[in-house]
């Protein structure tokens, strides 16, 4: 059976693929391809963040009553990443390969340690908290995918 953990973790891997492609194109100063793959990366990430911020986190907060805990930190890290996306977009527009490489390196670690915390702690905690309601939460996130 597909769980919240499996679904969102495999979405992380998918974002990683787009990240790597964009980084490779930018390093080779292949700007047309870099622009396209960066946009794809950014929109996949934004969609992932929205699934969490609009469905998973509120459901977690409602179920556990914890609003200032892990979801708060995850939201803050999403904001930090959105700021990096904006600067990366500017670097792609300016065709600045060094700036892109530095931002991309920074984002990679921020993103990966964020994913690690979600996959190791938050997703399992949510599944435990939701119990049988988990399936409905998962369905709700998937519906956002088809709408998007």
């Amino acid at each position, binding site marked *: 059976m597909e769980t919240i953990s499996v679904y969102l973790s495999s979405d992380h891997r998918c974002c*990683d*693929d787009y*990240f*790597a492609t964009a*980084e*490779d194109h930018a*390093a080779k100063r292949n700007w047309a391809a870099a622009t396209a793959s960066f946009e794809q990366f950014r929109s996949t990430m934004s969609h992932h963040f929205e699934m969490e911020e609009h469905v998973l986190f509120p459901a977690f907060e409602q179920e*556990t009553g*914890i609003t200032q*805990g*892990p979801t*708060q*930190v*995850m939201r*803050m890290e999403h904001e*930090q990443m959105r*700021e990096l996306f904006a*600067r990366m977009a500017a670097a792609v527009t300016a065709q600045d390969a*060094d*700036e892109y*490489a*530095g*931002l991309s*390196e*920074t984002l*990679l*670690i*921020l993103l*990966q*340690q964020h994913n*690690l*915390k979600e996959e*190791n*702690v*938050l997703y399992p*905690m949510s599944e435990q908290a939701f119990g049988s309601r988990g399936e409905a939460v998962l369905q709700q996130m998937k519906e956002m995918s088809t709408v998007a």
Partner: protein
Amino acid sequence: MNAPASGLSLEQAPPISVPFRFFLSAPLFLLLAALLVLVSGPQALASRWTPALLALTHLITLGFLSMTMIGALMQQLPVVAGAPMRRQQVVAWMVHIPLLAGTLMLVSGLFYSQTALLRLAIFPLGFAFSTFLVAAAGSLSASQVHHATTRAMRFAGTALALAAGLGITLAGTLGGYFNLPLNELIGLHVGWGLLGWVGLLVMGVAYQVVPMFQLTPAYPARLTRWLGGSVFLLLCGWSLAPQLPLPLATWGTSLTAAGLAIGFALFAGTTLYLHKKRRRKLVDVTLRFWRTGMLSLLAAIALWTTAHLTSAIADDPRYPIALGILFMFGFAISVVIGMLYKIVPFLVWLHLQSRLPRDKPAPNMKQIIPDHGSRRHWWMHMATLLLLLGSMAWPQLVYPAGLSLGLASCMLWLNLLAATRLYRQLAR
């Protein structure tokens, strides 16, 4: 619910000064090691029992490896295990200063053959390691995260406790406190220190960071599930085998040692294979250091195997030294440096971006430690490794090897120092 929830909060990540004091001290011990090589000349590497070599080994294992590994663990435990360490700043002081002082005392005691210094060194070193181990055990026992990495960390911590305990017993024996068989103790101390504490920790950390930094597939679950535990059990078996009656003791020792060699070869081979399968195409400096590390580990295992088949190699006094160069310098130091070049710029960025005003973005990681600086260091590091190995055949090469080690450690120190100064400047 409380433990994992609190572990996710950034406020509980330690202040940047907690890990950085360890990171900035460590290269200075490598520099001391370089000076020691230059002062002692070819004599230093003549046998594994020369005072210079014993001092050199502990500059590397305590001054560089344990120093950085403890600093990184104090930072990483909250992230990896989801459980913060209590009173981190106090623990940092209580571990860093005695580790620094104890290492210097022990190394001078070994180098100048001063048993009084060895007797004295026991106290700060014992204090540093036990404080760290108690704090880390507290953090890990509160953790509700159980995966291959936290398991390997528990094994590595136990190995550190044993290696440190054995080391203290050894120093006490040399210092005249006890009268115990030295050779047996030394074998156990080296095994638990290098294969247990260093080897198991690198393994556990690799499970997380290799996929994370290079976007490789995950380590196969059937490997990570049993490898750490097997290495730990093999080390236990290898330690106890000599107590068996005679033909069994020899067999037991050889079998467990062969098992350890296979375990580490599997680990190094899998890591290189995963590197090949990485989705991130570019070759960064961490990847270079890690590849150097894994190839050196494989070379060390190959040398060890050959020595077991050829007594001419096993009896050569240069054999244990070459093995030590490959394992300690080629494998352990390379892997640790590769990690520092990710952790240090990331922490500077992380702490800066939460302190700087919104309209003033923090410099990115490559502005904090530029690629050319770390890449130059990798070349110097490679030159050092080759010169050290070359000095096994041509003893005069220890001079250029010592020089190159000195330059490489200065490069590392200056790269880390530049990152720290940038932080200080901007965080003001």
